[in-house]
């Protein structure tokens, strides 16, 4: 392969594969969220169709 094609191909493959693996790794190692309790559930109450603040 010519040099410029090889450089672009390898850098793209490395970048994309690396980011895919990184984000998937972050997903599988993320701590599961605790079940919402009645206090936490009252936070950030959102209303349907509330007017733009």
């Amino acid at each position, binding site marked *: 392969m010519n040099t410029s094609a090889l450089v*672009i191909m390898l850098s*793209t*493959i490395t970048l994309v*594969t690396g980011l*895919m693996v990184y*984000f998937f790794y*972050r997903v599988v190692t993320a701590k599961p969220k605790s079940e919402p309790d009645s206090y936490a559930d009252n936070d*950030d109450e959102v209303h349907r169709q509330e007017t*733009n603040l």
Partner: protein
Amino acid sequence: MSANKESWGSRVGLILAMAGNAVGLGNFLRFPVQAVQNGGGAFIIPYLVCFLVMGIPLLWIEWSMGRFGGKFGHHSTPFIVDTMHKNRLWKYIGVFGIWTNIAVASYYCYLESWTLSYMLHSVVGTFKGLDQEGVAAFFNSYISIGKSTLGIPLEPVVFYIFCLLLNTYILSRGLSGGVERVAKVGMPLLIVFGIFLAYKGVTIKAGVDGAINDSAVGLNFLWTPNYEQLWSPSVWLAAAGQIFFTLSVGMGTIHCYASYVRSKDDIALNAMSAGWMNEFVEVVLGAAILIPISIGYLGVDRVTDLVQLGGLGLAFKTLPYLFFQWGDVMGAVAGMMWFGLLFFAGITSSLAMGTPWMGFMQDEFNWSRKSSAWSFGLIVFLLGMPTVLFFKYGVFDEYDYWAGTVSLVVFALFESILFAWVFGMKKGWREITSGSDIKVPGIYKFIIKFVTPLLLLWVFIGSLITPKNGDWGAAISGNWVLDDSSIIKKVMNSSLKKQLAAATDPIEIAQLQDTLFYVNASRILLIAVFLGIALLVYVAYKKRVREEKI
């Protein structure tokens, strides 16, 4: 009380399902063709830029809209968008998020059935001993619903119905019991098959098994950067378009899947993970299969001609012949893996297309999961049979153009404006970052508000008034002649009418006249389906008002 009690079984299952929704035939057939036609290796630059400023923002917008609407028990876009602003018309924009999926599924399932059929044909050796013309002729006969070597009458129809039944059955098993299970099996298999074929694609040696070029020739063709092309607006438009279609944004499926995410759970990291998984399949695997293998056996000039007709032709008319140059066993294995990979890519997408209709019917009319699934299957069958029976009269292409191309851009444009400007970035940002497992860069507030909508507007206007031969320079300097591929010219059937005017053979004239009829009939049918769904949304709205839910 809604009959809809669906939920995701696991976070990984959700990511794989979302990635499956995005990964489709286009990852393997559209991207490589777009790249070679738009600057080769240099295409990656506008492609990745558009991913960062349009793809990722749209993913975050759709995931967060979905989760937001899901808090109020809405699992399809009409009422999801209705939750975001009090103007009653927004829910009719949301109709796109159901209509697009039904219309696309009706022809996409036909494509999917081809991959299933070709898997079987690869295994039983149908393509063994055929030359390239023979393989192409097989395909032409197949879509003409001629009798195949399997001896099954109406084989394409049989496989299409089987494919629909399979989709419907899996959908009737629900989200975690059906869709997620298929994603957990199909996506890893797709990646394994893809890695195998990519390995074969990059290790071709000239002179071995009939190859005329090393893999390096095809890889050079695909990756050598032509930086001059970066100055062409058409290349940037092509990149934006490819990012758009590859992520399956603007369809309503992401909103639907995300609506089943719990309100406190992350969406930002999930969206990134699914998005980059799609990019891996497209840029790493997809780029290593179709073009290197084709050029390895056919040469650059021949493949340059073939890609003008798109990737489907190469996939079905050329690759089966090329695989059998590797011997009978490896040819069958490679064919089975190639069409198997395309099948998994297809079914994970078509299953996603079923969920918005199902969500809507369960939420609004308390239909059971089974009834919702089977009604989807029936509607898709009725809408899809014209694409099967009248394929050569352009019905398939017509559905693909309006539902699979134009409507995505229109809906994405509306939703980006709704999210950033109507709902507002203050609330929008809160929704994206709520429960987030990653730090979302603050610059995205600016990108989502200004860059993404403007880019989408440019994509839409660029498609509406595409200048002849994509020559934007000539157009801006005063000579703006519309290309036949522009939306305006498509509405006017300009290309067909030109062909009709130029035709002299009576058989060709009759074919073109029939095509014009079927094209117009397809449009009327699609509009009727849209209005029908809008009517259902209206009935559902009135029902909610009566029941004081709104």
